[in-house]
């Protein structure tokens, strides 16, 4: 086995545009679930709307990259309102059902051939980073940067820098909000919304605000992902939602840095497994073929998620008392 490559690829997973994108999405879920108690199973939908909003407005409407990204954000705000207004008055479980369905509907709308001109259908969209000027906005001259596993070309470095900037802003925003009286109301709603109503707070408005903020974080995650890879409907599937949930629960749902670090650990672990499992199978240690070995990591993710929820619901950084599933 080539341990050198395995370790190198694993360490590289620590800091990639993908890791940053999913950290943003997990941060959005922390707002939704960890702090406001909103069960959103459609975070992939928010990412898709952000990514497509950006790509379509550049490719179809000729917007510059920054305006395209703003459109992506507005799209995720719209999606949050669309989901929230009819469901937030209902019991929490309805939001879970509606979000999972809505995310699938969004994905299928992007996939259908009816709008191929705009969405690219199954091929997705590409070339928008160049067309919109995001690539040209790169302040780093061409070349190779970094060292060891973290060696990037100037384009990747630009996406990573931009992504880290966005992530830093979002982390600050969540932190600033959650230490404020606004955050106190949000946590109170998670505990018992009727009690909060009885104290004269407009619970519906607060829940909608939380849904929008988390949704924007998710949308930004989609945008950062799109700034690096192509926009493809195959990415925003329900299993992505569950990966993000796993990252969130790994780090700690009701924490600020938990989701970020959870995402880093999750994607590093993914990089490790996707490298080591095929190696194990080709060297005959695992009695499965290469393709099966690659799928095996998703099985392991599922098992990991279950163990996490059962034995450490508060995640790595959470306070055991603050986030448990058994109340």
């Amino acid at each position, binding site marked *: 086995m080539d341990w050198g490559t395995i370790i190198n690829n694993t360490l590289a997973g620590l800091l990639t545009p993908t890791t940053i994108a999913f950290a943003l999405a997990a941060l959005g879920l922390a707002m939704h679930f960890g702090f406001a108690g909103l069960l959103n199973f459609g975070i992939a939908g928010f990412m898709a709307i952000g990514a497509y909003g950006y790509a379509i407005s550049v490719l179809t409407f000729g917007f510059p990259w920054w305006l395209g990204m703003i459109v992506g954000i507005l799209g995720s705000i719209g999606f949050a309102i669309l989901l929230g207004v009819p469901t937030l008055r209902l019991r929490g479980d309805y939001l879970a059902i509606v979000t999972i369905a809505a995310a699938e509907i969004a994905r299928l709308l992007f996939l259908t051939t009816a709008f191929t001109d705009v969405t690219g259908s199954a091929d997705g969209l590409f070339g928008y980073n160049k067309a919109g000027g995001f690539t040209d906005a790169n302040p780093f001259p061409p070349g190779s940067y970094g060292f060891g596993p973290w060696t990037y070309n100037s384009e990747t470095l630009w996406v990573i820098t931009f992504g880290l900037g966005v992530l830093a802003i979002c982390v600050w*925003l969540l932190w*600033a*909000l959650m230490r*404020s*009286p*606004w*955050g*106190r*109301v949000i*946590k*109170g709603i*998670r*505990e*018992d919304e*009727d*009690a*909060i*109503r*009885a*104290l*004269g*707070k*407009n*619970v519906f408005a607060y829940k909608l*605000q939380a849904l929008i903020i988390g949704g924007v974080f998710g949308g930004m995650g989609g945008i950062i992902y799109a700034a690096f890879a192509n926009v493809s409907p195959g990415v925003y599937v329900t299993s992505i939602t569950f990966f993000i949930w796993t990252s969130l629960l790994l780090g700690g749902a009701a924490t600020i840095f938990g989701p970020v670090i959870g995402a880093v650990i999750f994607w590093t672990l993914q990089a490790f497994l996707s490298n080591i499992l095929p190696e194990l199978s080709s060297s005959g240690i695992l009695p499965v073929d290469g393709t099966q070995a690659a799928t095996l990591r998703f099985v392991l993710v599922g098992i990991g998620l279950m163990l996490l929820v059962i034995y450490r619901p508060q995640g790595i950084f959470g306070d055991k*008392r*603050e*986030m448990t599933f058994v*109340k």
Partner: protein
Amino acid sequence: MSNNETPQKTTGLHIGKAEPGCKKNDPMLVIDHVKKTFGGLTAVDVEHLEIPKGAITALIGPNGAGKTTLFNLLTGFDSPDTGTWSFLGKSLSGIPSFKVAQMGQVRTFQLTKALSLLTVLDNMKLGAKDQAGESIWKALIPGFWKKQDKDIEVKALELLKRFKLEEKQADFAASLSGGQRKLLEMARALMTDPVLVMLDEPMAGVNPALTQSLLEHVLNLKKDGMTVLFVEHDMHMVRHIADWVVVMAEGKVVAEGPPDVVMKEQAVIDAYLGAHQDTDLGVVTGRIDTINEEKNK
């Protein structure tokens, strides 16, 4: 407890004969034709009811009489099939619960709602009204709310002291006992500076030692100028602190009047006691007296 000083009762609340639906000199809540059905069951059917201002009114009645349902209707947590009601002259029909609370009509719940995974102090601070930092924009800049938050904290600590919970301020509310949660819920409600406090069974599950201090808290509310409406099964408490008693049975108001008078009324005895017709009402449900009674036998 029975040898405690009887608190000063407020009298002269009603106009004319004390009968169901009688007029009050200074009503705070006026309820008209409020009806609520669940399927075929009529949970509440109140023709006319006025709750006097500045007094402690007890709402009593057997299990399932519709007391909690009436509370839910009056506070906007549920909507009636028909009927209107007003609070300090303002109609409340169709007003959502949070607005009702903002107007100064605050309630507690029969099943206590402590915000378990918030600290006791945060529970209290949530009660305060008009907090600048609760707006999402101002929340981002502590300059807008830091000072107000400090003031709120001072007020919260004062109340916690009064309710003997100040040592628990940093603990999660989940760690409180059932009785302490009742106290916390009441204290939190007071953080809103209410004019009308509606307590749904404040004594349920509270041990006798704590009952005494709770009674005093309720009496203090009146002293501080608030109006109290409470649901209670403990007749000892009702008799001890209520200025006025409203009796409900099967959704209707069957009697009202000052406590010692109303508890002797035939309608009340029929509705409430059934088989225990010849025993004194306080003995049947007032815990302490019952124990003494049994000892004496």
